[in-house]
Structures are given as structure tokens and as C-alpha cells.
């Protein structure tokens, strides 16, 4: 036996998973509640005790971890044009597992600077201009950042021609330099920045957050949890050199406060008549919806879907819905199983809407433009129509009694035909919460992580696109 311990430090739970590298299987899992950041060591010990009850005492050959504790990794990004370099920078940081607190475009204003000064980020990602292109914006932003009193790590990933000036201006910041996120127009190059963000996370942020004590317990990797999940699903989709993956996929993680969506695949137009517009899309893409979640962010779902429609889908009176929502908001730790029938229905509807809204925001959009020559099709964003697998993870999906229906919300719908979501897909459930652990393990043993995921994810069956009529009939 070759046991390895994988730890996921969450903001509310610390989860531990023991894996046997030799048998390529999971030995056991457990978790413990962590109320405060200072508790992190205690939460870990508690979780380990519980794990030992299941697995017996194990001597781990390594201990690896990911973390979203202490508010996650707070990143601010700046670029020039909102939908070009600023967007490229945003995509880069999201894919590295960051929590994006601000996206600035064009020149930083005095107001922006005050905001940065008052609440400085863990990392500032400074971009703008293609290589050899606009130099003025990034240089003046560097100058403005230098006028602040706070100092924070800055990653320069903009126009190379502006590098010398920026290095001089930012001499007393911890500055690292990466290749431009958009080296030439429309081309996205985000992996180097993502690597750098993860390195900074490990080196600086972890020690600043009181996680350093736990670091002694670890033997290496510590990455932001969303970045671990993104590497897990990327591995699962693409496989290794020796072993194929399961193909292009999307994954949805609905949480109490936010909903994350991941997609792995090229996402190019699937018809010769469609013309792609805008910035290239990342092969492995993550988006996070900060206003969509089934406990702290219910209001965001209501705002998006509307209370009446939500009530109708949960088979409740609108007044009753409002009552139940305030009940849920007041008791965010209420689990679906200890609820009455009404609350369970509401919970299901909230999770379904979260999947629907978040995948719609993640997916690309097809628009029909009416030209003097007749209609033409333009695609903006990533095309998921041909992706044939959906993975569900996160508390509210894992504990659902009707997970296949939730998966279906991620598919193409007649209500939003413009949204380029999958036509049909096989749904897989991350029942035992292994994705983040496998993402961490993948850094060391990708082959083993891949095979464990293939074994452990539970197939739920195939779901098909949603058509208006059947939606109206209420049949699933």
C-alpha cells in the first residue's frame, strides 16, 4: 500500500481523502467543520481523526492540499479594452482559481486607486496592449499604482514594449513578468500567468494567511481549490499521453454563495456558416457567478429568474416562496435532508436555476444578424453544443434526489436557443467530492488520478435538450 493524503481546506469544511497509489483507489474520506480561519489546524486534526476511524492508522508518503480558505485568492486585473486585454486577464485569473475582486479597463481613475488602497488585492494582474501595441495605458497604470502606499505582488503580462518602463516604475513592488495575455490581436495566452499565480499563491499568500503552520504538515503542492478542480476536469477530458480521457466536458459546482462552471474543449463554431467573433476562448475555461448560489446568493437567482416563475417551478405560491427564502437565508447550513417537502422542492428549484443561469453565462452566444444579404450567424464566446459530458459537483448537486434533472438544466433549451449549450450529454456525479483531491493528485500522479476519476464518478444516464413543449407539460 502507498497511502497519500489529499486535503481541501474550505471556508466552512476541511475535507480529507486518503488514496492508495498502489491499488489506485480511495481508502476513505471525511470532513470537519471549520468556523474560523484560525481553526484551520484544528479542523484538519478533527477530520484526520475521523478519517483514521475509517481507514485505521496510515503512514502517508505525502500530504498534498488545495485551499479556498480565508476568502480565497483575491485578484484584481487591469487591461485596456474591456472585451480584449481586460477580458483576457480576467479569464487568466479565473482559470488560476482566483476570486476576482475587480476588473479595470483603460486608465485607472483616482476612484479606482482609492479602492485598491483601501482593500489591496493578494495579486494585481497588470495587462494592456498587444506586443508592440498600445504602451501608454499600461505604463500610466503602473505609474498610478506606484503612487499608492500599499505594496502587493504585481504580475506584468502586457505589451512587452512597455516592460522596461513598468519595471522601473514598479521597482519596489514584488513584480514578476509573464508573456502578454494577448500577444497579438484576439490571441489568448494565459497559461504562463496561471502558473505564476499558483506559484505566488504557494509562496506568499499562504504564509500571509496563517496557513503556514499547516504547511509544515504538507509535502508540496498547495493550490487554490478551483484551480485544482479545473486541472482535474482538464485531465479527465484530455487524458494523459498514455491513456485517453473521456472527451470534452462541462462541470458545474453549485455552492451556497457562488456557482462555478468549467468547460474543457475547443468550443469553436460547429458549422461552416457561423463566423467566430472576439477573443479566442480558453480550452480549459472557468467562470464563477458571485451572485448565484443556493444559500447566501438566493437573491441573485430571484433577480435573474423572477419570483413568480421560480415559485411556479417549485409549485409554491409566490408569497410562500418569499417566506421560505428568508428562512433558508437565515439558516445557511440547513441541509436538504432535514427539510420539509416544500423546502426540498424549493431547494431543487434553486439548484436547477443556478445550473441554468450559470451555464448560460458561461456558454457562448449565437446571434443572427440581419444583413442586406439575408441572415448571417455570429458566434461570441465558447460553443459547448457538441460537448457530451456534464459533471455535477458541490453540495447542493451531490445531495440532490433528482440530479439528472439538474444536469439537464445545463443543456440547450428552446427558451434560450442563442445559448450554445450541449444538445445531449451523459451526466456524471461527483458523489464523493473527489474532484479537488484528484486535481491536486494530478500534479504528481496524473495517470492514477485519471483512472480513479473514471472509476469513481457515478454515471447518471443521458439527458437531452429541453424543448418548450415538454417544459410546459412539466415532464422531465
Amino acid at each position, binding site marked *: 500500500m502507498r497511502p497519500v493524503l489529499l486535503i481541501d481546506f474550505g471556508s466552512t469544511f476541511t475535507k480529507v481523502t486518503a488514496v492508495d497509489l498502489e491499488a489506485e483507489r480511495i481508502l476513505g474520506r471525511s470532513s470537519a467543520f471549520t468556523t474560523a480561519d484560525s481553526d484551520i489546524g484544528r479542523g484538519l486534526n478533527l477530520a484526520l481523526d475521523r478519517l483514521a476511524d475509517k481507514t485505521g492508522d496510515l503512514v502517508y508518503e505525502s500530504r498534498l492540499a488545495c485551499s479556498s480558505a480565508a476568502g480565497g485568492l483575491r485578484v484584481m486585473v487591469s487591461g*485596456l*479594452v474591456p*472585451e*480584449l*486585454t481586460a477580458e483576457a486577464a480576467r479569464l487568466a485569473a479565473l482559470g488560476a482559481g482566483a476570486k476576482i475582486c475587480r476588473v479595470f479597463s483603460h486608465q485607472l481613475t483616482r476612484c479606482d486607486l482609492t479602492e485598491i488602497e483601501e482593500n489591496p488585492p493578494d495579486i494585481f494582474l497588470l495587462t*494592456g*496592449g*498587444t506586443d*508592440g*501595441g*498600445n*504602451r501608454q495605458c499600461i505604463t500610466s497604470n503602473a505609474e498610478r499604482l506606484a503612487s499608492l502606499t500599499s505594496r502587493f505582488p504585481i504580475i506584468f503580462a502586457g505589451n512587452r514594449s512597455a516592460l522596461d518602463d513598468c519595471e522601473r516604475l514598479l521597482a519596489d513592488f514584488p513584480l514578476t513578468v509573464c508573456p502578454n495575455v*494577448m500577444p*497579438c*490581436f*484576439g490571441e489568448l495566452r494565459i497559461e504562463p500567468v496561471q502558473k505564476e499565480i499558483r506559484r505566488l499563491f504557494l509562496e506568499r499568500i499562504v504564509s500571509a494567511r496563517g496557513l503556514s503552520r499547516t504547511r509544515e504538515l504538507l509535502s508540496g503542492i498547495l493550490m487554490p481549490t478551483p484551480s485544482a478542480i479545473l486541472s482535474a476536469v482538464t485531465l479527465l477530458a484530455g487524458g494523459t499521453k498514455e491513456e485517453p480521457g473521456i472527451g470534452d466536458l462541462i462541470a458545474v459546482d453549485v455552492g451556497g454563495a457562488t456557482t462555478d462552471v468549467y468547460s474543457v474543449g475547443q468550443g469553436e463554431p460547429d458549422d461552416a456558416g457561423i*463566423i467566430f*467573433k*472576439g477573443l479566442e476562448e480558453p480550452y480549459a475555461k472557468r467562470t464563477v457567478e458571485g451572485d448565484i448560489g443556493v444559500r447566501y446568493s438566493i437573491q441573485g437567482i430571484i433577480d435573474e429568474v423572477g419570483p413568480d416563475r421560480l415559485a411556479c417551478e417549485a409549485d409554491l405560491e409566490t408569497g410562500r416562496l418569499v417566506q421560505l427564502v428568508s428562512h433558508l437565508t437565515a439558516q445557511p447550513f440547513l441541509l436538504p435532508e432535514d427539510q420539509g417537502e416544500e423546502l426540498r422542492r424549493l431547494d431543487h428549484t434553486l439548484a436547477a436555476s443556478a445550473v441554468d443561469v450559470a451555464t448560460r453565462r458561461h456558454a457562448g452566444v449565437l446571434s443572427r*444578424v440581419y*444583413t*442586406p*444579404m439575408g441572415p*448571417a450567424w*455570429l458566434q461570441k464566446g465558447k460553443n459547448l453544443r457538441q460537448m457530451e459530458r456534464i459533471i455535477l459537483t458541490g453540495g447542493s448537486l451531490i445531495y440532490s434526489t433528482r440530479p439528472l434533472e439538474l444536469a439537464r438544466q445545463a443543456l440547450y433549451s428552446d427558451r434560450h436557443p442563442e445559448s450554445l449549450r450541449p444538445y445531449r450529454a451523459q451526466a456524471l456525479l461527483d458523489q464523493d467530492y473527489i474532484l479537488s483531491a484528484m486535481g491536486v493528485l494530478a500534479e504528481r500522479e496524473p495517470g492514477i488520478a485519471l483512472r480513479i476519476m473514471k472509476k469513481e464518478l457515478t454515471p447518471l444516464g443521458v439527458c437531452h435538450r429541453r424543448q418548450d413543449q415538454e417544459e410546459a407539460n412539466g415532464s422531465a
Partner: protein
Amino acid sequence: MEQENGKRLVIGVIGADVHAVGIRILEFAFRQAGFQVTNLGVMVSQEEFIGAALETGADAIVVSSLYGHGELDCRGLRDKCDEAGLEGILLYVGGNIVVGKQDFNDVEKRFHEMGFDRVFPPGTTPEQAIECLNKDLGVG
């Protein structure tokens, strides 16, 4: 190829126009002449021209229109450039910019009024365009 002249061009076919061949030839010719070229291809919106010109720090935007609706598609481009901080950027347009055979002097006048610095009639060769670019951008 000529030595790079340090001047940057953003080029593309505006509007709903899908004529894809000419713009590639222009891209090739402009590169040969020493320009750095960002070719946005076909079906390019005004916003795309402007976004690309901003990020690449372009010295000129070269608009091609072949299907006859150039006048509609080009209207307002200069104002939007001004709005976006691209005041004074060189704007060219050419191809078959209007429908059918019209008096080119009239056409030229209308496009000048729309803020284009140079307007080229059908049949303009890339060389003629390069000559103008060199002159207007002070190359060589």
C-alpha cells in the same frame, strides 16, 4: 520583404460583407511593404476595428467593403474613433464601396464628409494604397 517600418495597420472587411480574398491580398502586400498588420478578416464591426486599433496602437485603420453597402456600414466610424481616444487616426476605405456605377467624385466626397482620409475607387491596386500610406504616415 522591405524592412519593418514600425507602422501598425488594422485592416478588415466591414459590416456583413464576406468577400474574403481581397483582404488577404492586402494583408500580404502591406506586410511585404514593411507594415505590421492586424487582419480582422470579414464581417468586422466598427467596434472590432476600434478595439483592435486601441490594443495594437494602430497608426491607421484600412476598411475594405466589396458588397455595395459600404456607406451604411462606415457611417459613424470616425465619431466612434474620436470617442474611443483614437483622435486623428488615419482612416482609409476602398473596394466596391457603393452599389453599381456611380460618379466616383460624389462617392469620394460623401466618404470624406464621413471622416475618411482617403477613399479608393474600384480597381485600386495594393501598391497605390501603400504609396499613400507611406506618404501619410511619413515612411521612408
